[in-house]
């Protein structure tokens, strides 16, 4: 009896490991395919400028996606991210231009607001057992409304310090700044996400909660604290994404980021994170964001297809990946594989036992 239970647990572990790997591998495959196809069809596609722009144009998406990945791995969802972007944009522009505040202070304030809002949402989700999509939906309403409250009109930012900050880059090439501030923040957040999810207790707890919350409670993990922190981190990422978006737009506009939450979720899913929670990688999300960016770049290079094709392509890609995920979770290919591995291990263990008994 005892033996059987142990075998089952190990088997699950094995299954998850394989289930995790297939989607991320297919995402990388799609990324390479798109990149090569784009390069073969269009001149100048392989240039460093295009590659740098991939990180620049999608920086805000990437920053949001890091937070969203952790939320989805924990088994939740955060629909408020797009609105927080809109709010942060307008808020910073308003403070800097209308109130003449120091941009650094304005950014700091907006980060504080984003994190506080995330914490509050996490608190409501965990302590009152409200569904995550409902609470974050309310957050979505609230921040969009607050953004309008701050300013109904677009505010251009002319503050010199702010513009200088947005122009700081990694290096210059042919008179152009490559990897400017926005993309550096993006890359830093991805690295931070990787570090937290793989090398910190916090990350491991997130995976455990996403895999099975009751088990995580029984294991004595700090479920409540972790869940609240995940939403707080997502709120922080949203505010930071808003800052990056403000760098990008150089203005504040209350309608910024409408529908962004869907692009972010699409990027996370295409990056191979399982929507049921418990499995996924920040690295995959990076690939997912870059795939969305590549589609956009290819459409731009082609020039004849309009923006709505972007939505349709994303929808299609999302559909394919979700189908892949569903098939992976349902099909028993990996179960069989894992059982075989387990059998081998059991046999080996038996052999070892027998030899030890003989001696």
């Amino acid at each position, binding site marked *: 009896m005892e033996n059987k239970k142990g075998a089952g647990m190990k088997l699950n572990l094995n299954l998850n490991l394989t289930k995790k790997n297939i989607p991320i591998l297919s995402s990388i495959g799609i990324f390479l395919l798109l990149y090569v196809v784009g390069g073969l069809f269009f001149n100048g596609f392989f240039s460093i400028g295009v590659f740098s722009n991939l990180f620049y144009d999608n920086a805000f998406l990437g920053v949001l996606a890091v937070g969203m990945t952790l939320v989805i791995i924990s088994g939740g*969802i955060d629909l408020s991210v797009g609105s927080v972007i809109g709010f942060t944009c307008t808020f910073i522009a308003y403070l800097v231009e209308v109130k003449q505040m120091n941009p650094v202070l304005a950014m700091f304030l907006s980060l504080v607001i984003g994190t506080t809002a995330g914490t509050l949402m996490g608190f*409501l989700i965990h*302590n*009152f*057992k*409200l*569904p995550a*999509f*409902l*609470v974050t*939906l*309310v*957050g*979505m*309403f*609230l921040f*969009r*409304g*607050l953004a*309008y*409250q701050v300013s*109904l009109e677009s505010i251009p930012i002319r503050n010199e310090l702010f513009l200088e900050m947005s122009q700081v880059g990694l290096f210059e090439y042919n008179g152009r700044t490559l990897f400017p501030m926005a993309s550096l923040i993006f890359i830093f957040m991805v690295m931070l996400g990787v570090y937290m999810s793989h090398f910190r207790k916090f990350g491991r707890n997130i995976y455990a909660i996403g895999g099975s919350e009751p088990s995580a409670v029984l294991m004595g993990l700090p479920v409540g604290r972790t869940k609240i922190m995940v939403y707080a981190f997502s709120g922080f990422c949203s505010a930071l994404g808003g800052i990056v978006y403000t760098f990008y737009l150089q203005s504040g506009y*209350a309608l910024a980021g*409408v*529908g962004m939450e*869907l*692009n972010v*979720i*699409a990027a996370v*899913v295409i990056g191979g994170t399982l*929507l*049921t929670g418990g499995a996924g990688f920040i690295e995959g999300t990076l690939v997912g964001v870059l795939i969305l960016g590549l589609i956009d770049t290819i459409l731009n290079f082609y020039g004849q297809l*309009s*923006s*709505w*094709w*972007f*939505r*349709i392509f*994303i*929808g*299609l890609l*999302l*559909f394919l990946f*979700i*189908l892949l995920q*569903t098939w992976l979770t*349902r099909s028993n290919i990996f179960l069989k594989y894992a059982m075989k591995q387990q059998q081998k291990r059991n046999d080996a263990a038996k052999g070892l036992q027998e030899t030890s008994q003989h001696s």
Partner: protein
Amino acid sequence: MFKNENVRKLLWPAVALLVILLFNVFFTENFLNIEVKDGHLFGSLIDILNRGAPVLIISIGMTLVYATGGIDLSVGSVIAISGAVAAQLIRPGYIHGILEYPDPPTSLFVVIGVPLLICAIAGAWNGVLVAFVGIQPIIATLILMVAGRGIAQLVTEGQIPVFIHEPFQFLGGGFLMGVPFPVIVSILLIAAVYFLTRRTSLGLFIESSGGNPIASRYMGIKSRLIVLSTYVFCALCAGLAGLIICSDIKAADANNAGLFLELDAIAAVIIGGTMWGGRFTLAGSVIGALIIQSITTTILAFGIPPEVTLVFKALVIIIVSLIQSEGIQDAINTWKTKRAQA
């Protein structure tokens, strides 16, 4: 008092609606006035019903989906699709710069029938993904939410076709016996759905499919088919709402038609007290939709920018769902027992 569970559930939403209306009676001028101009009814109350008709219609469809343990995020995009298709049918050459209408003008039957058919297909797509493929509803309908607006823009090629079509305009802007036609449409729809779900066993089937799909299947209920049909019905409702909006503004705006409307509908259903996967209440959703619309109208009457209504809607939703949440209910119950012991 209020022993009946159904009545008790409706109490808080009804009180909330009354409070909002009372607030208006005191602070908005001529709120209760209903005038008859040219044989048409006018007034703030009529306006709430008229402007609220699309939200009301969608929230009826959403109620059924919500009761099966699902959610339909794609209604906003379906609204955009149905409006775009209708406008395209009325004025096929508009996007290519041909301003003439086809001769004879497109028949009303086609203008209403074809968009609804397309919406039904969209709903079937959602339903198949949820019920047969087994994808979580939030995600399955997310796909159409992302792609649907793109499809609508594809139909109108990113333009906003404007049109004149007398019979079709009646749907959104007409009056029948003095009452705005959208109001009549929504009342008829509510009556039909009430009859179908509460006077036949269909309603119970939907609730049991939401409560426990596997047990329902063992009982002989075709729960997958029922879930599928709720999604088709919800998309049809969205399509109808889209036609009303499109016919009211005499144009199809693929970018903005129905934007955020899915949230209004979900809010209306939640405020009304329908359970996620379980008992649903049509009356509750109707009250919920009226609450949402009254908030919007109130704020407009106060001259606050309409966009800011989102803040108030958010606050109302979170307060109502907090009152209904387990945590608060537990706290109230323990407080009650403690008081009884003391």
